[in-house]
């Protein structure tokens, strides 16, 4: 139970920050008249967050007692998440409404938020020393 709460908290923290960053950066580009970049960032950011949420939520199913079932579920989860991440990329390649590089940046939004948080913490710790 404690494990579920910690994982859920982590997902909420990074997921909401990633979404906020994607929307915030998207709005900034919208204000500059770059609609395609805005749409790409938000689209990628949403799918990045959903992928991260699925990654954590499938943990409890992946860690079942039955090894065969755990292997099956892990593979299914992996496949599902890659298909999910392919959706915004295919959409942005196919449609002019989305900027492709912005969509790519968007699908790395959760990773960017994680790295930024720990990078900040590292810099602050050097500062204290």
């Amino acid at each position, binding site marked *: 139970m*404690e*494990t579920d*709460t*910690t*994982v859920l*908290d*982590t*997902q909420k923290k*990074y997921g909401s920050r990633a979404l906020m960053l994607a929307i915030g950066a998207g709005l900034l580009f919208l204000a500059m008249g770059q609609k395609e970049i805005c749409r790409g960032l938000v689209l990628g950011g949403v799918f990045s967050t959903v992928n*991260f949420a699925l*990654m*954590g939520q499938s*943990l409890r199913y992946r860690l079942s007692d039955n090894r065969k079932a755990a292997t099956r579920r892990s593979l299914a989860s*992996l496949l599902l998440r*890659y298909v999910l*991440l*392919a959706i915004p*990329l*295919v959409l942005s*390649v*196919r449609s002019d409404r989305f900027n*492709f590089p912005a969509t*790519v940046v968007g*699908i*790395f939004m*959760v*990773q960017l938020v*994680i*790295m930024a948080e*720990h990078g900040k*913490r*590292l810099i602050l710790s050097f500062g204290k020393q």
Partner: protein
Amino acid sequence: MMELDVQAWVKVAAFAGGGIAMGLGAVGAAIGEGYTAAQANVAVARSPKISGDIFKNMLVGQAVAESASIFALVVAILLLFIDKGDPNMLKAAALFGAGVSMGFGAIGSGVGSGFPGGQACLGLSRQPAMANRLTTNMLIGSAVCQTPAIFSMVVALMLLFMDFSNAPLHPTWAALIGAGLSTGLAAIGSGYGGGMAAGASCEGVARQPEAVGNVTTIMLVGQAVAQTPSIFGLLVSFILMFKTFPESTQLQAAMALLGAGLCTGFGGIGPGVGNGMAAEGAVRWVARNVKHAADLMRIMLVGQAVSQSTAIYAMVVSLVLIFVV
């Protein structure tokens, strides 16, 4: 009729390249994530009370370790769906080279970035109070491990978007495939080796938290040197992509360029892993004997320089194949 054939070849090359990019790209990240999960199991069995923190660390580590395969996914989707433009046989070679570069290039980084994740989970079970430091160290190590995969993606994107239509078909087709092979293969060793150093660093931080500064510094230096073979690969790829080769329908001219890519590519795998081993040893023992950090760093750098020499031989032979043969 001829035009239709060329168009078909371009599609065949793009689809094969896309399959190789994602197929091989998934291998490394899956192994790396699996390693992290395996070590998380050991850690939970050792300290079940902090299972929540261990799972959190595992999740964050896996999210970053997955980056290499997401790079591969991006390149694969581009290869499958992008407008191929004016079809010609050089375009087909470039698209295939892009897939090869990204596919091979993601293997080492994917596996390597799993090592810090796994060791951080284990370390957490030993030193729960160092959770933040361990996670930060894991993320830095994991991020540096992605560099060879980023080199491969850069080469793949250049092959995808650069216009080679003015170059002669023979032997440029071989140069473009060679460019993909050079960076892609060389990235395997560097990504894996960098991961070894990062894993040892997480173990060291958990073992001796006071030595965190020395451990992180030697990890970064060790990882930087372990990246060198993939930089050689990148250099040969750039030469193969940017140099204009005189037209020659002789097969040996094409094979010399393809061989140049293969030589630096394969030649970079061993030195990348070897450099990682040297860095792993130094980082691990600095944590146990921090007073001798300077000696350990010196021995690591000398060992890495010697291990590097085989990558230099490979690059010299590649340059001979490009400029002399």
